[in-house]
C-alpha cells in the first residue's frame, strides 16, 4: 500500500519532473542518484525534464494490480523525452488502436490513484497524444 511518507519522498520527481544532471559527464538521471552510473561522479545539478517527447514502446494493461483494477484497460508507455531521457508513465486520452510507436506526446499532471484500499490519493505525470 502507498503510504504518505513513501509518496512524499518522490514528490519532486512526480510533481515537477526533477532529475539529476551529472556535472562531470552530463548524463541526466531520473530519478536523481547519488553516484553517476556512467562516470561515478558525485555532483549533480537539479534539472526539470522537458514535457514533450515521443512514444518508444507501450502496452495496454488488461489484467491490473488490485489498486488499478478500476482503471483497466489502460496504456503504460516508455516515452523518450525531448532531451533524450526515457521515462515510464501511463498514456491516456486515446484509444488503444490510436497508439503508434514514435507518436509525439506531451506530459500532463494527472491523478494516478484514488484514495481507498490502495492507500492515499496520488498524482504524477501521464503522457497524452500531442494533437
Amino acid at each position: 500500500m502507498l503510504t504518505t511518507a513513501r509518496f512524499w519522498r518522490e514528490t519532486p520527481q512526480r510533481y515537477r519532473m526533477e532529475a539529476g544532471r551529472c556535472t562531470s559527464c552530463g548524463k541526466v538521471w531520473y530519478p536523481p542518484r547519488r553516484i553517476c552510473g556512467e562516470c561515478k561522479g558525485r555532483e549533480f545539478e537539479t534539472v526539470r525534464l522537458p514535457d514533450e517527447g515521443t512514444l518508444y514502446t507501450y502496452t495496454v494493461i488488461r489484467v491490473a494490480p488490485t489498486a488499478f483494477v478500476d482503471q483497466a484497460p489502460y496504456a503504460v508507455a516508455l516515452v523518450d523525452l525531448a532531451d533524450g531521457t526515457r521515462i515510464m508513465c501511463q498514456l491516456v486520452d486515446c484509444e488503444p488502436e490510436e497508439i503508434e510507436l514514435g507518436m509525439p506526446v506531451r506530459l500532463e499532471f494527472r491523478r494516478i490513484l484514488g484514495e481507498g484500499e490502495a492507500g492515499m490519493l496520488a498524482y504524477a505525470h501521464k503522457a497524452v497524444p500531442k494533437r
Partner: protein
Amino acid sequence: MRDVAVIGVGLSAWGELWDRSLRDLFVEAALNAVEDAGVDSVEAIFVGCMTGGLFAQQEHIGALVADYLGVAPIPATRTESACASAGAAFRTALMAVDSGNHDVVLVGGVEKMTDVDGGGATAALAAASDQEYEAFHGVTFPGLYAMMARAHMAKYGTTREQLGLVAVKNHENGSKNPHAQFPMKVTLEQVLGSVMVADPLRILDCSPITDGASAAVVCPLEMAEKIAKKAPVRVTGSGQATDSIALHQRKDLTFLESTAAAAARAYDMAGCGPGDLDVVEVHDCFTISEIMVMEALGLVEKGQGGPAVEAGETALGGRIPVNTSGGLKSKGHPVGATGVAQIHEIVTQLRGEAGDRQVAGARRGLAQNMGGTGASATVHILEVA
C-alpha cells in the same frame, strides 16, 4: 578452487496445492534430492525464495526449512534475487563447496504462491520491478515484458506468431514431462486467440502461478565419485550478473545484458561456447523472454530468436533443444524454486533419464535463470563428469 558436482536432484509436487504449505513443499523436494544423491546428511543449506513475506507472510526461510528437515543446527541461508533466487542459491552453494567451506550442501528453492488471490500475486511479483517508477504507474510484469516484446518486434520484425510458437513448443515438451503443471498441448490458434493480458501478450504467452519446491545436493567432484548413488554431473561454469532494475534505464530494451554477461563468465569458466551445448533450459516467464534469452546466450544472432523458433531449431530434435522440460510455461513457475528446477532438468538430461523428451547423447547443458525484467541473471553449465 575445487571442482563441484551435482549428485542428487529432487522436486516436490507442483501446482495449485491448497493442502500443502511452504515448509512442507521444500521438505518434500529436499528429501527427494537427498534420496537421489544417496547421502544421509548435509552440512549446510541455501534456499531460494522470492517473497515468502508477500505470498505467505513467512520470512526467515533458511531456519524454517532446516528446522523442518530436522537438521538444525547446521547453517541455512535464504537467497533472494526475485525469480532468480534459486539460481543465486545454486551459485552460492557452489561457492561454499569450491572454496572448501563445506563438502555436502543442500541447495534449492521454494515458493508458495496460491495463498493470495490474483491481484495479490500480481502485486507481490510487481515488487521485483522498480516500485516507485514502474509499479507506481500500474504496470504489471506481463506489461513490462509486453513493452520489451513490442520494442523487439519493432526493431527486428519478430512476429506475434513467433512468440506464440514458443508456447506451442514448450507445451509440446511439457506433454512429455510427467512433472509438468500444464502438460496439455496448445496450438498456435489457441495461443493467438487466448485472453489478452497486456498487449501484445496473451494469457498463453505467460507462465503460470505455481506452488512448488526444487532441491539438489552438491559436493566436491572428488568426493562425489565415492559417495554418490548415480554418476555425478560436473558443474563446469557459473556466472551471475545484474542490470538496471527499471526498464527506462536500459541502454537497449531489446537485449538482456545481464544474461549475456553471466553467460560470458560461465562460458569462459567452462571453456566452451554456445555452439558446444546439447540442451538448454531458459527462463521463459513469457514467450518473448525465451526469444530474448536465446539471443543473449548467443544461441542465435541478435534479432534471430523468432525465426529460429519458427524454423524448429529449438524444438526437441532441432539444432539446440531449448526447454525440454516444458519450461516455466508448461512445467510451472514457483518463482523462488525455478532456478534449481532448471538444474534438475539438465541433470536429468545428462543422466539420460528424461524419457520421451531425452536429447540423445546429451553431454553438456546450460541453465539460465533471471529475476525481474532481467535485472538479475544466473547461468550455469553442467557436463557429464
